[in-house]
């Protein structure tokens, strides 16, 4: 066996430029609608207002990094609640898995930002440089004024879109109208410009230049997807049982009249021409295919034109093609253990999140026992423990909390530097939408029998709104 020296091999793949042709049909239409919706939301959402009362930002969706808050319509997330995002990510993962189990790479073909922006950029390219054939011809032709202005105009519009994409991104991190004004007058913080520059660059290069190579070489999802799929998941499939052997319409008639086999694929290559990743679906399922369904639209157009039934390329499974070949009925099983499990998991996680959110406290308390010293003996022999108590007020108004303690008999509670109510409960007032730390002393009289350690509960009750939060800790004694 001979071994070619690996060093002699080309280090890079000769990149073949893809010239996707325009196409129309239901899948294309669905993709346009999704594109307009997604980009519309992305570009305009920062400008949506949401009244939260005084002192709080009125932007519907805002990641307020400086103040450690995240606002989403009626929800205000504190840093310690970022597990909501974990929940969202888990939910997103299950939705992705479910889509994948039902109809393959729905995400890739219709929803992924890479696909959406590439689609938009391709539309711009088509607007300035024409459709596939014209673009190929112009690219082969020598430079001319026509070629130059069309290319420059395309790149210019690309850059504007890319810049606008970065611009919209930073608007999620500050009050949008203010930031727009600052950006326009060059008084915005440097980081805003830097982020816009970074995202302009990534959008321009990912959607304009790298395009399908991102999916083929960079993205982990196709690899994961391949491991997650099963035989019942629908995929964009070329039904070779019906298509092969490929012959022209005329020849097919001739062959059929003699009783010889003839397929429906007339080998027009339209499916290849429209493919955004430049592959031939007739080679079977392949990793480069983002399952956008455009070849279905292209093929159906051709089939209708030549008078054949549509659906030579369709959402189907390889197993069904084989079944048809063997003269059996195709089997579709959208409801199966896998899809039901994912759906169930989505319900569980989603339900848990809704429940969490609905029963969410607007106040919180955390208690930290002082470790040095663990306890203090006072001159009358009583035992005192100290705690650092942090009270959290998520409401937009300041709230007084009264502290009480339960556990060892006769326990008294004081908060250093705070006054007390008539019934000796110390009152700690927490400013709106913030937290406050107080040193709390719990004292148990000398005559109460104490173990080395016993549970103690510290309770904070909002004096007006009545909300009650409590935390448990220990009371230590000699």
């Amino acid at each position: 066996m001979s071994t070619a020296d690996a060093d002699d091999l080309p280090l890079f793949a000769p990149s073949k430029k893809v010239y996707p042709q325009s196409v129309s049909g239901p899948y294309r239409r669905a993709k346009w609608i999704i594109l307009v919706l997604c980009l519309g939301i992305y570009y305009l959402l920062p400008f949506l207002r949401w009244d939260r009362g005084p002192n709080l930002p009125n932007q519907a969706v805002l990641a307020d990094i400086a103040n450690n808050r995240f606002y989403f319509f009626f929800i205000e997330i504190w840093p310690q609640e970022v597990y909501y995002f974990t929940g969202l990510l888990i939910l997103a993962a299950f939705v992705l898995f479910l889509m994948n189990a039902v109809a393959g790479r729905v995400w890739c073909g219709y929803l992924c930002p890479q696909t959406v922006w590439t689609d938009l950029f391709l539309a711009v390219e088509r607007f300035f440089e024409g459709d596939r054939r014209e673009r190929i011809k112009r690219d082969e032709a020598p430079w001319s004024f026509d070629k130059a202005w069309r290319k420059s105009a395309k790149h210019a519009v690309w850059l504007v879109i890319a810049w606008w994409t970065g611009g919209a991104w930073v608007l999620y991190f500050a009050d949008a109208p203010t930031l727009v004004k600052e950006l326009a007058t060059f008084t915005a913080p440097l980081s805003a410009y830097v982020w816009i520059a970074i995202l302009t660059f990534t959008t321009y290069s990912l959607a304009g230049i790298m395009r399908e190579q991102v999916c083929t070489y960079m993205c982990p999802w196709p690899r994961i997807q391949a491991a997650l799929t099963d035989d019942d998941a629908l995929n964009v499939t070329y039904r070779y049982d019906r298509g092969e052997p490929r012959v022209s319409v005329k020849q097919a008639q001739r062959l059929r009249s003699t009783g010889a086999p003839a397929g429906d694929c007339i080998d027009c290559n339209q499916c290849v021409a429209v493919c955004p990743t430049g592959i031939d679906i007739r080679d079977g399922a392949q990793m480069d295919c983002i399952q956008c369904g455009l070849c279905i639209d292209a093929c159906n157009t051709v089939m209708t034109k030549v008078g054949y039934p549509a659906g030579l390329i369709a959402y189907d499974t390889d197993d069904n093609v084989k079944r048809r070949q063997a003269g059996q009925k195709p089997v579709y099983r959208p409801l199966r253990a896998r899809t039901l499990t994912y759906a169930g998991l989505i319900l569980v996680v989603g339900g848990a999140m809704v429940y969490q959110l609905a029963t969410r406290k607007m106040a919180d308390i955390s208690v930290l026992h002082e470790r040095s010293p663990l306890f203090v003996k006072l001159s009358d022999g009583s035992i005192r423990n100290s705690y650092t108590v942090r009270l959290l007020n998520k409401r937009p108004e300041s709230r007084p909390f009264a502290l009480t303690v339960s556990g060892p008999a006769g326990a008294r509670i004081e908060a250093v530097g705070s006054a007390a109510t008539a019934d000796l409960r110390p009152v700690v007032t927490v400013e709106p939408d913030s937290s406050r730390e107080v040193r709390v002393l719990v004292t148990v009289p000398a005559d109460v029998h104490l173990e080395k350690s016993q549970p103690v509960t510290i309770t904070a009750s909002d004096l007006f709104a009545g909300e009650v939060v409590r935390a448990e800790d220990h009371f230590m004694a000699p």
Partner: protein
Amino acid sequence: MAEQDKHAPQFDAATGQSTTGHEWDGIQELNTPLPRWWLGIFYATIIWSIGYWVVYPAWPLLTDATKGVIGYASRIDIAQDMALLKQERAAQSKALTEASFEQIKADPELFRIAMAQGKAAFGDNCAACHGVGGGGAKGYPNLNDDDWLWGGSFAEIQKTLEHGIRFAGDPDTRVSQMPAFGRDKMLDAAQIRAVANHVRSIAGLSTEPKADLAGGAKVYADNCAACHGDQGKGNREMGAPDLTDAISLYGMDMASLTETIANSRNGVMPAWRQRLDATTIKALTVYVHSLGGGQ
């Protein structure tokens, strides 16, 4: 095909793709090289990294390292940050310096600043003897309790911090000297034992079976009551501890008491005004006062 041209490209029969020529158990590796731009980025990052060697400190030398042309050092950053911090905190410091203890107590923001500063200063200066949380140890008072040798008001704590206790280097230091009754032959062993028993009895503790309590009471009245008081309640003017409460600095068992009476203790605390500025001492006072025992 052993002696075929080594450099002729091999092709995979099924896909027609060129192979790397590597083969394992009959499985050949297809040649699917990286795209050009990808490789370009890889090389570009390598070249970029060379810039770091030149610009930043990078190469270790025998005793040092290359400095880098812009003279960057994280130490300089820290110095700048610290200076900046000081500047930013100047206003707070000023407010703290000027405020009275009553004002600090009444203003939550000032109180918070004083506490933070006091806590940091306590960790740096006081924790070595008094413990991280002021819990104390034998001979080093627990600052969390309500038993004060020299007084637990803001003013008294501040004075103790500034001038120390029995600190030779400060003329205004707090002084009191309990005699070493045994070592200096002022009392004999029997008297010491008797007075120790007497002290235990007024503290509500058990005494030895054959203790000479009457004798002890007399020794106490003659030698101790002047400072510790007739009832043994102590005297903060002289830093004389209350002998009857549940707290003692050196222990109330017979052995410790005997040792204290015979040789005396007379612990020392430094005068911090020599090392800390007035604002820090003020913050420390607020912090210590807040630990639980402040009066």
